[in-house]
């Protein structure tokens, strides 16, 4: 049933147009056929969470193996499969889809005041590609030769059929086709939604930072993922059609794979990180009861990070001896600048605020500290001589886990705690949430700090066993203990979800005194999101509507922007007659 959605006028209380509400389909049919961005977003998040828990379980198995130098008897093949699938699930199937498939799908249309994503059926199609891609990757475990075992980067000669025969590797490649297309479709959808479905008054410079970050992320997806798909097509033809794109024997160039992969892979890191920066930037102002500090600077910083991130791919290849070190080193170091700007924006937002430490805010503070540590070690690794000393050691492992865990998990779960009331109309338990945070926080540092030391002592990554007597065992045990504490924290999370499911505490429409348009809708929102909209005169229309006396103090631009808050609809000027609306 196609709905010709009308823009709800300001202040209109109820809208009679939701005819489709009368015949709600059954659960399964709804799940299979829904093109509602909210349903799809929740589907994405649930699937991504399943992947997260599976992948985390694999990480625990690996940590157990590493707790003693000779391991616990896990075979090398199993270990190689585990870290390959751990990385692949986390990076391809959890971190990215949770953000741009789940959170963005749900939140972005609401923040711009749209009834749905621009292409609802394409959106549903993206989800099915993502789900089937995830299943495809996991199917590798059921094959006789096991899942892919060449690391999540699948460097070329090792991933060719001579060195990695068997269907597990093929399933891994096919899975990246499916999820890659899924990501591209979602990216297109997000860009179109943000460009074409904004509510009147929601100019680009009033987009909430989360939406800005998702726009930039979507552009990065469109730049990066096709390259990954191309790299995988080449790999597949090398494996099955006898081409020699990556094999020296046939005149191919193995380094080409690394170039292609990292041209995707480094933007991918920011595809994973930027949405979560956006999540943190949504949450910190709300709990500080202030507007985000340096809004425009923050947007430019985001764009700068994204732009620079596409010019630094070869900093993963410093030790290949085939790349231009100063170019990639300089651009990599320069990323520290906009990232620093973001830090100071976050601090400036908290500065002189009234910060209440509800669970989401607590997670955001954890994110700031974790990302600070990960970022500083990242600056070190951007320097080729230091990278020479630590490349492919646990130093790098600790670095990227601090960055990625810090962003995707700390900020990601901050987002989940933050928007869960909006999605389900019920609260998560704050005490359990804080218990989740503190166990995870302790486990996080206990897990990764010893890994820095291990790396500096020369322990390589991706090894199932290591020599005894080098003093590595105790540090590894500490890391394993930390990993289990993290595991415990996610059991607390499950308990929290269960409690909220069994004993719902109604959330109300705006439990946090939120800023964005999503808090103006009901919880959970009705089918096409809004029955009414507030006037949009800044990047936090809901706040302006609720606090007409606490508007942003404009500084240096557009003072007139804020005169109309609460004034409702201004008379039509005649200029914008809606002809360009989608």
């Amino acid at each position, binding site marked *: 049933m196609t709905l010709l959605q009308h823009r709800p006028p300001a202040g209109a209380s109820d809208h009679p147009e939701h005819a489709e509400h009368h015949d709600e389909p059954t659960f399964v049919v709804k799940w299979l056929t829904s093109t509602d961005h909210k349903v799809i977003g929740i589907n994405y998040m649930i699937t991504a969470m399943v992947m997260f828990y599976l992948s985390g379980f694999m990480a625990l198995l690996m940590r157990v193996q590493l707790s003693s130098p000779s391991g616990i008897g896990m075979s090398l093949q199993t270990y190689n499969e585990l870290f390959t699938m751990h990385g692949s699930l986390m990076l391809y199937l959890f971190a990215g889809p949770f953000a741009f498939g789940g959170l963005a799908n749900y939140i972005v249309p609401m923040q711009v005041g749209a009834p749905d994503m621009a292409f609802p059926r394409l959106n549903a199609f993206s989800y099915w590609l993502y789900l089937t891609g995830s299943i495809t990757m996991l199917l590798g475990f059921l094959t006789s030769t096991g899942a892919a075992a060449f690391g999540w980067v699948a460097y070329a000669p090792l991933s060719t059929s*001579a060195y990695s025969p068997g269907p597990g590797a093929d399933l891994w490649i096919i899975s990246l086709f499916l999820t890659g297309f899924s990501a591209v479709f979602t990216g297109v959808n997000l860009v179109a939604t943000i460009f074409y479905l904004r509510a009147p008054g929601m100019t680009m410079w009033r987009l909430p930072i989360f939406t800005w970050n998702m726009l930039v992320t979507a552009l990065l997806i469109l730049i990066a993922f096709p390259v990954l798909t191309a790299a995988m097509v080449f790999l597949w033809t090398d494996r099955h059609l006898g081409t020699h794109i990556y094999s020296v024997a046939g005149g191919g160039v193995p380094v080409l794979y690394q170039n292609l992969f990292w041209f995707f892979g480094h933007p991918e890191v920011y595809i994973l990180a930027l949405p979560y920066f956006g999540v943190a930037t949504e949450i910190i102002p709300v709990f500080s009861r202030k507007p985000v500090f340096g809004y425009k600077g923050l947007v430019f910083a985001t764009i700068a990070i994204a732009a620079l991130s596409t010019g630094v791919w070869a900093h993963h290849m410093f*030790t*290949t001896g085939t790349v231009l070190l100063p170019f990639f*080193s300089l651009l990599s170091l320069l990323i520290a600048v906009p990232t620093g*700007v973001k830090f100071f924006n976050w601090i400036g937002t908290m500065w002189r605020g009234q910060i209440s430490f509800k669970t989401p805010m607590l997670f955001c503070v954890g994110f700031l500290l974790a990302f600070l540590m990960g970022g500083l070690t990242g600056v070190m690794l951007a320097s080729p001589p230091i990278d020479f000393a630590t490349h492919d050691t646990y130093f790098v492992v600790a670095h990227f886990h601090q960055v990625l865990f810090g962003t995707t998990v700390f900020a990601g779960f901050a987002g989940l705690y933050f928007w869960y009331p909006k999605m389900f109309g019920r609260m998560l338990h704050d005490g359990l949430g804080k218990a989740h945070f503190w166990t995870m926080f302790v486990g996080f540092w206990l897990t990764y700090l010893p890994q820095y030391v291990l790396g500096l002592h020369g322990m390589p990554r991706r090894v199932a*066993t290591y020599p005894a007597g080098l003093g590595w065992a105790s540090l590894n045990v500490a890391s394993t203990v930390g990993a289990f504490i993290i595991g415990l924290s996610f059991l607390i999370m499950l308990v929290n979800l269960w409690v909220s499911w069994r004993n719902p505490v109604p959330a109300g429409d705006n439990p946090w005194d939120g800023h964005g348009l999503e808090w103006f809708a009901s919880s959970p929102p009705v089918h096409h999101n809004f029955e009414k909209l507030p006037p949009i005169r800044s990047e936090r229309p809901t706040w302006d509507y609720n606090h007409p006396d606490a508007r942003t103090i404009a500084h240096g631009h557009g003072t007139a922007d804020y005169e109309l808050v609460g004034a409702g609809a201004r008379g039509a000027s005649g200029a914008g007659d809606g002809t360009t609306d989608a």
Partner: protein
Amino acid sequence: MASLLGVTASPPSTSVPGPRDDGRGRRGTLQSRSHAHGDDVGRHAQRRRRLAGIGAASLPLLLGGCQLPTFYGYRGQTSQAHDEFLLYAGTVIAAIVVGVITGGLILWSVVRYRRRSDAMPRQFQYHIPLEIFYTAVPIVIVLVLFGFTVFTENKVDNVSPTPAVAVKVTAFQWGWRFDYTNQHVFVQGVRTDNPDPVGLNGNTCTASAPTPNDCLGPGLVLPVGQTVRITLVSNDVVHGFYVPQFNFSRYALPGVTNRFDFNVARSGIYRAQCTQLCGLYHAQMFFHVVALPPAQFDAWVTGSQPQPDQSSVAQPGTASAAGTAGTSGRSASGARSAGASGSSAAPSSTVAGASSGTTPTGPASTAPPASNSARTTPSTASTAP
């Protein structure tokens, strides 16, 4: 060759290259080394405690590199590694300063601006001078760091036109081969079983290494104080040539030849390992560097060079055993056999065939290694005297 085939069967007394004729002096060297600088990991734990109190105040120490705390890193046993260490330590200090300031601001905001009342905070959003300030300062920091980086990088990557010794390092699944191109000597080992190195590498190496596990795998013998040119290639997949105490790693890429120099500063035995995932036995692809004073190095070379009477022992047919050999061909006798046959492909296949009774801990190996090691025929073999 016979002795080669019996690497583990024969007494391992000759296993460590070099010190055979000068063993005592060698051991003395190692002892003095361990007194001079206790950088090995075994002693690191004690050092770590002493370093616990290091703070940002050590910035002036940047001038005197020797006084710098190690920040858990290695000071480096080559001149290149020492340059890298200075950059590392300086960067860590800068990072600590930046981290303390930023983290302090975060924690200060968190503590100071906790919600104490329902008063509405001032809704400010922009402060242009401040924003310019915190954009400009990181740019300056980063550019300074970039300057030091380029400076160090040029020194580390500098390749001397006249190296004293040239070694071609060939990585393969899952072992290493070191060809001393001009001396007609090579050392080759396939992967080493973890975690029992004794008996694979000989007791002398084990005894003089900082820990027994510092001398796993084949030994790359290098002279101290001379420029060594390493030419790094791979026979199959991507491997990582990594010597932690040299603060250096470089990929061995198929189809690419990488060249770099080491100027080893002190004699000793330095653990090393493949760092880039290269397949099933990646975790067991060890080697180690044996740094000897030039005289001992020369003696080792002489002692390792081809001896005509051993030329008939080559057994090419045993090459297929290489994949599951599970042992190290690294030994003085193995090295000595290098050019011994004086012809064609015999040496490498023989070395590869040096199977021992040690069984691999993992599943049965896959096929490729046999042919890989067979391909490692040294170019010098045919030109051997």
